[in-house]
């Protein structure tokens, strides 16, 4: 069917982008060298490349590949979470940070940078506070009875605002010559610190989240028709919504762990995907994942190649995202309703 054709096309596009990105960098590697190197790796032979294979090993496998995989994971996770949230909250203008996960994780990262000794501790702190922020949002929503979706959104606003203030406190009290620049720079987002081992560690839960969101994507259509209709169709609305929020939170919090704060991807990629494949979430979610992954690899290429110095990727995603969002608004105005 056309569904599988579009998805295969997007997958091929992603792989091509990834391979081309491997050749891009301050140290030029030809496409043929890259291919020869990986073919050699697969057949366990020393490749007949122009550049020294050991240099290639270092350049491609230790430096570029982890970074490209990190970019794919981050882009895919944010896009999948964003698309799932947009369906669940019946609003095409929400992003994965809706329930405060990004604010919480940013605070966790900043706090970790000040008190923790190791980078691993910072990462754990980032992840935990991302989850804590969402749990607080859900907790606030549970205090009152009424429109669950509205209460969750308000809970997220409150929780997000709280962690943003707490982040300011941490920044204010941070050493202005050493810690503060590190925090600010990290929050601009960037993949330069993505090392192979960390990427491998976060890849597992992120992939599990995305696979799970995809396999539950059939419920997103019915959730976006409203709770009562979904319940009347026998769908365990609360349970599926909590599960989806858990999966999206896990994926989004981990993006902050490896790449800091990257905005706008989770908001605009689902829109691009929707223009391409339509609103049906059973195909929209996998399409968002593939497009999001491709997009962030490309943006990362731009951020590390455009100027002599690397620009934080979060700045690039915002600069690209904002004009696009203006276009999206025009369409929303024409009747996305809700």
């Amino acid at each position, binding site marked *: 069917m056309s569904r599988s054709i579009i998805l295969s096309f997007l997958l091929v596009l992603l792989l091509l982008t990834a391979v081309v990105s491997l050749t891009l960098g301050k140290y030029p590697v030809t496409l043929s060298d890259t291919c020869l190197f990986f073919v050699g790796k697969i057949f366990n032979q020393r490749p007949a490349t122009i550049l020294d294979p050991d240099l290639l090993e270092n350049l491609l496998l230790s430096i570029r590949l982890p970074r490209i995989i990190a970019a794919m994971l981050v882009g895919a996770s944010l896009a999948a979470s964003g698309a799932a949230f947009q369906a669940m909250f019946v609003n095409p203008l929400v992003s994965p940070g809706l329930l405060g996960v990004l604010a919480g994780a940013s605070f966790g990262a900043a706090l970790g940078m000040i008190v923790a000794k190791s980078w691993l501790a910072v990462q754990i702190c980032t992840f935990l506070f991302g989850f804590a922020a969402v749990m607080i949002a859900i907790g606030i929503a549970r205090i009152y009875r009424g429109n669950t979706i509205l209460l969750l959104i308000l809970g997220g606003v409150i929780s997000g605002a709280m962690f943003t203030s707490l982040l300011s406190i941490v920044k204010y009290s941070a050493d202005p010559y050493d810690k503060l620049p590190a925090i600010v720079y990290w929050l601009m987002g960037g993949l330069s610190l993505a090392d192979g081992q960390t990427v491998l560690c976060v890849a597992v839960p992120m992939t599990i989240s995305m696979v799970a969101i995809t396999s539950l994507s059939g419920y997103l259509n019915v959730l976006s*028709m409203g709770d*009562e209709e979904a319940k009347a169709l026998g*769908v365990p609305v609360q349970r599926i919504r909590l599960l989806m929020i858990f999966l999206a939170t896990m994926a989004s919090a981990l993006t902050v762990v490896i790449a800091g704060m990257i905005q706008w991807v989770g908001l605009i990629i689902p829109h691009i995907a929707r223009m391409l494949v339509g609103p049906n979430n059973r195909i929209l979610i996998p399409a968002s994942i593939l497009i999001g992954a491709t997009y962030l690899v490309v943006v990362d290429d731009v951020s590390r190649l455009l100027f002599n110095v690397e620009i934080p990727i979060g700045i690039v995603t915002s600069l690209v995202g904002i004009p696009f969002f203006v276009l999206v608004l025009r369409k929303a105005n024409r009747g996305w309703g809700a």
Partner: protein
Amino acid sequence: MKVIETPLIEARNIRFSYDTKPILKDIDLVIRKGEIVSLLGPNGSGKSTLLKVLLGLLKPLEGSIRLKGRDIHQTNPKEIARQIAYVPQIHRGSFPYKVIDVVLMGRLPHKPFFFSYSGKDFDIAHEKLERLSIRHLADRPYTEISGGERQLTLIARAMTQGAEIFMMDEPATGLDYGNQLRLLEQIISLSHEGYTFIKSTHSPEHAFWLSDRSVMIKDGSIIGDGKTESIVNNDSLFDLYQARVTVVKLNGSIRVCVPHAISKHTRMMVSGDEEEIMFLPLTL
């Protein structure tokens, strides 16, 4: 030997409130197969709440609801959904899903937790669209079809659920006159196929035209339950809506309501009781 059929739905002593304000008080209601029951009552009388309680979406404070003899709150939600379908008040929808995708949602109660739709699911959905003569809409966006077509789409989804009881919340509200009449026609034709309808309505005439049986609700209590033609009359309509109308019987069968305020205004005179109506034409 007389066989006593188990009622489809049997609600006993239902009490419900959202906060402290009671919404439903001591509701007793028995629904039998093939009935078209109209719920009549003013805004805020509890009609929609009653439908949701009967669907098992809201749990009453007291009382029990039995679906074919089984307590509805002990029944698996998917099992309920295979028997009762909810056709909500007309809505604009959120995302522009295709009509077929909306109808396919009706297959959810037949699916395991992790699922994908099979060719059979599509066949069933298309078949129901065909039955309602809207198969040509299958690939159109749900948000861009007319209100009447959206209502039919939701009915197709209800049929796809495999449900035999349809709970409709003001199905005709928001439809233009022609679509209202076509909708009523579809409901009558589906009821001949054995479907049971419980629908709230703001139009006593729709109750006359469709329903053998009407239930009148005021302030959360049932104040009348019985044959439409015997319980819906000038006095009970005044009691419900504080509006004076005369129920007129035309050609000895069809009933319509003539509001006094309007008839005075147009100088059309209505006198006497039901069935002894004399129309004085405007030209007199």
